[in-house]
């Protein structure tokens, strides 16, 4: 519960910081939703930068961050103490004067689903990627109290602004708070961004429906219940688009420059936002040339826009350059990074259509099985899509232009991801959001053709179906087991350790170190470094769990030992069933550590179930 209280305080602090920056920059003529979105965008972005700076200065310590946070909260509260009764009065009036409208059904579905997500996010993190990378990097930084180069890991050399929010969560409370910020809150803020963008092309009712459709897409459901960075990046990029579209509509350059700040935060969160910059600059050039600007006149705003984006995102890239010599690690040092996993199975350009079908339905044509390490976009945003062709010419030119730009951006970004090593929907989430915005005009047209209540009914049925079938509600024996444990944890009947033991550590095929192995690992020397040969998830392991992909496939014993010595590795961990599955999947012979000829180097010091811990006997080689 303390996590939820700190989350509310954090929301207030972020809003306060954002509001202050907005006042300093003297931004006006914003609608209520634009104002809220901008305040949160600027606020959370500044918090990312602030924590990053503290990390660079070696001040990433609880005794510094916590008092600083409390001070900020108190200052904001004193400054705005008069606004609180007004806010309560506003909410009270809204509730008293409430009139039911049929489309509110969709809103109630959203409230219930968001509440369920909140409940899930209030339980400890169990997402694999989060434990092995996105939570482990902040926890290692916090252990040292500074941002440093983690020599055995490459995740810390990618843009890390969202991981700074996770660090803040860990410093203020626990991994649960980190999950609440980067998962649940960012999910809500993304739908706020979608609402704000949609308001440019549709009315309030349709904008709310569109925002809810985006919130319930299956791709978002598992990202909300994790500490992954995708939602944070999506939020910053969608905030950028909200302001960018405002500039497209009214031509005031101030909005373009402010949108640059938000894009800077997005680029500092994930490389994919570079494509938004590329596309955005293209649109700026197009718009300026169309508005009778000369090329000379166009250069200045474009340069200012790019400079703002660069200035905001630069700290992250300077850090990468200092630590790795490659500002956009790993693209300059190893451009084919990740391609050895052979995830992308699309070989021909015309498979782009198949790719779209795959990521939307999660199937191969028509209903064949399709395997993907992500959830599909789902069909709800596309329900009324053919209606986009219905009397399009009658719509206002600006709306038409916006919708075309958004659709082209989706085709552009999904086209790039189609060629990338990991063509998953979560990497194009902002573009999906913009496509959902475009679909709002189809809902508008459906209102004209069908009866309004009929459209709402169709949408409600599909939304409930999507939430039930794809969004992981506790139906089915395994999810019910998890749900019951979550309830028990929530009621305080079981501790966090017990919960994790039941749900993660001792669950069959979870891929995590089991609880007995962890108890043994806890008895090892404090500076022990354990190399994992499979997908070991490091965050909960009481010693440093090192995952180096090149050592997982190394075939030469001398090179392996040399590299292990360089990385100060003293132990090796693997789970037999997982390692067999992994090497079969990679289609390579079993790791040489398991070769009996080298058993004199690797002593099995503990094994439980099918999990093994080996001690590396470096002395035996010297003899």
């Amino acid at each position, binding site marked *: 519960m303390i996590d939820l209280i700190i989350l509310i305080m954090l929301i207030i602090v972020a809003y306060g910081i954002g509001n202050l920056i907005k006042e300093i920059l003297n931004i006006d003529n914003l609608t209520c939703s634009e104002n809220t979105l901008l305040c949160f965008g600027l606020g959370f972005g500044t918090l990312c930068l602030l924590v990053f700076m503290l990390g660079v200065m070696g001040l990433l310590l609880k005794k510094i961050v916590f008092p600083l946070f409390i001070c900020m909260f108190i200052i904001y509260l004193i400054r705005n103490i008069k606004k609180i009764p007004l806010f309560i009065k506003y909410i009270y009036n809204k509730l008293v004067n409430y009139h039911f409208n049929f489309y509110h059904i969709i809103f109630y579905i959203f409230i219930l689903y968001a509440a369920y997500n909140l409940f899930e996010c209030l339980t400890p993190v169990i997402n694999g990627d989060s434990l092995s990378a996105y939570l482990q990097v902040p926890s290692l930084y916090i252990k040292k109290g500074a941002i440093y180069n983690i020599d055995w890991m490459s995740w810390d050399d990618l843009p890390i602004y969202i991981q700074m929010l996770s660090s803040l969560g860990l410093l203020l409370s626990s991994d649960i708070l980190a999950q609440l910020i980067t998962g649940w809150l960012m999910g809500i803020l993304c739908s706020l961004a979608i609402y704000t963008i949609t308001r440019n092309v549709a009315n309030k009712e349709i904008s709310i429906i569109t925002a809810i459709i985006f919130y319930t897409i299956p791709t978002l459901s598992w990202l909300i219940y994790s500490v992954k960075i995708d939602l944070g990046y999506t939020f910053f990029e969608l905030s950028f688009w909200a302001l960018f579209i405002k500039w497209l509509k009214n031509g005031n350059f101030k909005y373009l420059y402010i949108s640059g700040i938000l894009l800077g935060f997005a680029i500092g969160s994930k490389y994919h936002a570079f494509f938004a910059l590329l596309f955005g600059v293209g649109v700026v050039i197009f718009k300026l040339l169309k508005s009778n600007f000369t090329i000379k006149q166009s250069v200045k705003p474009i340069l200012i826009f790019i400079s703002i984006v660069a200035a905001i995102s630069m700290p992250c890239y300077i850090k990468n350059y200092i630590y790795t010599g490659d500002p956009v690690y790993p693209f300059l040092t190893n451009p084919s990074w990740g391609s050895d996993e052979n995830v992308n199975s699309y070989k021909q350009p015309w498979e782009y259509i198949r790719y779209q079908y795959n990521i939307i339905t999660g199937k191969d044509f028509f*209903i064949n099985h399709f395997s993907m390490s992500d959830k599909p976009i789902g069909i709800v945003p596309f329900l009324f899509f053919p209606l986009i062709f219905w009397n399009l010419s009658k719509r206002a030119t600006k709306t038409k232009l916006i919708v075309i730009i958004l659709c082209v951006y989706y085709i552009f970004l999904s086209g790039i991801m189609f060629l990338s090593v990991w063509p998953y929907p979560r990497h194009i989430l902002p573009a999906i959001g913009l496509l959902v915005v475009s679909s709002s005009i189809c809902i508008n047209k459906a209102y004209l053709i069908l009866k309004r209540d009929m459209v709402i009914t169709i949408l409600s049925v599909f939304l409930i179906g999507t939430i039930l079938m794809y969004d992981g509600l506790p139906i089915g024996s395994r999810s019910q087991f998890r749900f019951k444990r979550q309830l028990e944890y929530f009621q305080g009947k079981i501790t966090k350790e017990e919960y994790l033991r039941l749900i993660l550590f001792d669950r069959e095929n979870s891929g995590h170190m089991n609880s007995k192995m962890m108890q043994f690992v806890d008895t090892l020397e404090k500076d022990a470094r354990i190399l994992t040969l499979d997908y070991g998830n490091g965050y909960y392991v009481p010693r440093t769990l090192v995952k180096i992909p090149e050592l997982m496939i190394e075939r030469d014993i001398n090179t392996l030992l040399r590299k292990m010595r360089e990385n100060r590795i003293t132990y090796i961990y693997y789970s037999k069933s997982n390692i067999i599955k992994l090497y079969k999947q990679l289609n390579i012979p079993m790791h040489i550590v398991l070769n009996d000829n080298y058993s004199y180097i690797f002593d099995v010091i503990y094994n439980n179930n099918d999990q093994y811990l080996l001690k590396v006997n470096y002395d035996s080689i010297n003899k």
Partner: protein
Amino acid sequence: MKHIIKSKVLTKRIIPVIMEIIWILFLYLIFFYDAIIYFKKIVGY
């Protein structure tokens, strides 16, 4: 008929609506297929 073609009612109104009906049926099929699998999973088959 000539009037309908001339007024572009066919291309701008009727065809999109027919497309929409086919499209929704197509999506319903996918959705229905998943619903059957899902129902089987709940029942435990």
